[in-house]
């Protein structure tokens, strides 16, 4: 296939997945410039559907890279095509995001606040509970939970709530949110990874607070760790080249001081601890081997960085 259609498919995938929301500024800028060029040279030969999907993508990219005038132009094209008074929630969502971005927060709020029956807009309304420049997201979380009471099948909102809980260290609640997603679709391996990761954070949190070396406390911690490991393992069972999850497993097997404590317990004759440690040995070798196969050192370092954060 020609270069044009390869590039087109790339942009369409970028737009439909929304992956650009997590891009670094540099990546955003380069994608914006590339798409601007692409639209200039190939805009005429695209189908309507492709063209307006790309306009929507370019709207976001322009807004994120502070090309406000261009973003407005894209928005106007979309409005011209689909009608200013149309009941399209998608369009209103874009308009509201634009208004919010250029600082007209009240107008943006008014736009999404019109009818509670418009679910996509109601969902956007929830984000107005977010406070700028602070880590206090209690209000935001309570509006999210309120929305989820009304819409318990909305996976994206569950994911958002999970991430918010994870941010403030309520890992148990975050795990609950992610598991809600898995209840609806049991093949979402990135979410299995997230569950494993949050169990791991939970373990770190509990371990820090650990004062005693009592047996039952240690076993409790071990359980958290086993949960974390099992979720990682499920992720690599579904997709066996999932580097992040392999790194997660490797980290769990390399917990020096905690494993020493477990070893003492194991020597004391507790069977499940012994089994865990034996299993650990095997996993440590296996995950190490898989990471060597899959990841470049930079990629590995980046994943480690993400986990430690």
């Amino acid at each position, binding site marked *: 296939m020609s270069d044009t259609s390869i590039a087109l498919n790339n942009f369409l995938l970028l737009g439909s997945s929304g992956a650009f*929301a997590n891009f670094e500024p540099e990546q955003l800028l380069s994608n914006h410039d590339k798409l601007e060029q692409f639209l200039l040279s190939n805009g005429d030969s695209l189908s309507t559907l492709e063209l307006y999907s790309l306009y929507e993508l370019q709207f976001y990219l322009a807004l994120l890279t*502070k090309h406000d005038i261009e973003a407005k132009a894209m928005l106007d094209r979309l409005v011209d095509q689909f009608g200013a008074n149309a009941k399209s929630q998608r369009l209103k969502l874009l308009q509201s995001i634009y208004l919010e971005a250029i600082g007209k927060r009240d107008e943006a709020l008014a736009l999404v606040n019109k009818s509670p029956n418009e679910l996509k807009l109601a969902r956007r309304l929830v984000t107005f509970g977010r406070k700028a420049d602070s880590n206090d997201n209690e209000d935001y979380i309570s509006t999210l939970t309120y929305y989820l009471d009304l819409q318990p099948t909305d996976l994206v909102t569950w994911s958002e709530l999970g991430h918010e809980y994870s941010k403030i260290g309520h890992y148990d609640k975050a795990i609950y949110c992610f598991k809600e997603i898995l209840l609806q679709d049991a093949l*979402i391996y990135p979410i299995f990874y997230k569950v494993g990761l949050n169990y791991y954070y939970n373990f770190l949190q509990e371990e820090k607070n650990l004062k005693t070396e009592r047996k039952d406390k240690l076993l409790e911690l071990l359980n958290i760790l086993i949960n974390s490991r099992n979720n990682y393992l499920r992720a690599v069972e579904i997709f066996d080249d*999932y580097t992040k999850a392999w790194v997660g497993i490797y980290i769990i097997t390399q917990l020096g001081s905690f494993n020493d404590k477990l070893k003492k317990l194991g020597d004391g004759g507790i069977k499940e601890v012994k089994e865990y440690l034996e299993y650990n040995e095997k996993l440590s070798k296996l995950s190490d081997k898989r990471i060597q196969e899959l990841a470049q050192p930079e990629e590995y370092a980046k994943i480690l960085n993400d986990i430690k954060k």
Partner: protein
Amino acid sequence: MAKSSTLVTYFVGLLLLVHSGYSSYEFHKLSAITHQSSHLPIDILVETLVGIIVIVIGGFNSIENSSVLTFDGREIQPDYKYLKPIEMKDSVKLIERIGTSDYEELESRLPFIDIVGKRKKYDEWVKSHQD
């Protein structure tokens, strides 16, 4: 958008078929005039068969997987030339290598995007870049 190699193959194949078809037409007309019935000449037969094979090969050529572009701009070839593996662990490899996944919307959470915060971050990046 079809590949040019496919189009060339189709064109050559169709040319062969049209030519052999016209030959066959002339042959039948001739035998009607002379009232001699004989078998179709072997060269028409061969030309038709070659034309069929060429077009079928073109059809195979048209179902090849195209290469894809990753989000950081590298062009990669899919693992298999024609088809896609049906096992999940094999088939999601490609989209993961592009830099996303089928469940990216749960990761990106675009409807919840903190547009003001992201723009601020971009501003900071531009500033740090100018220095």
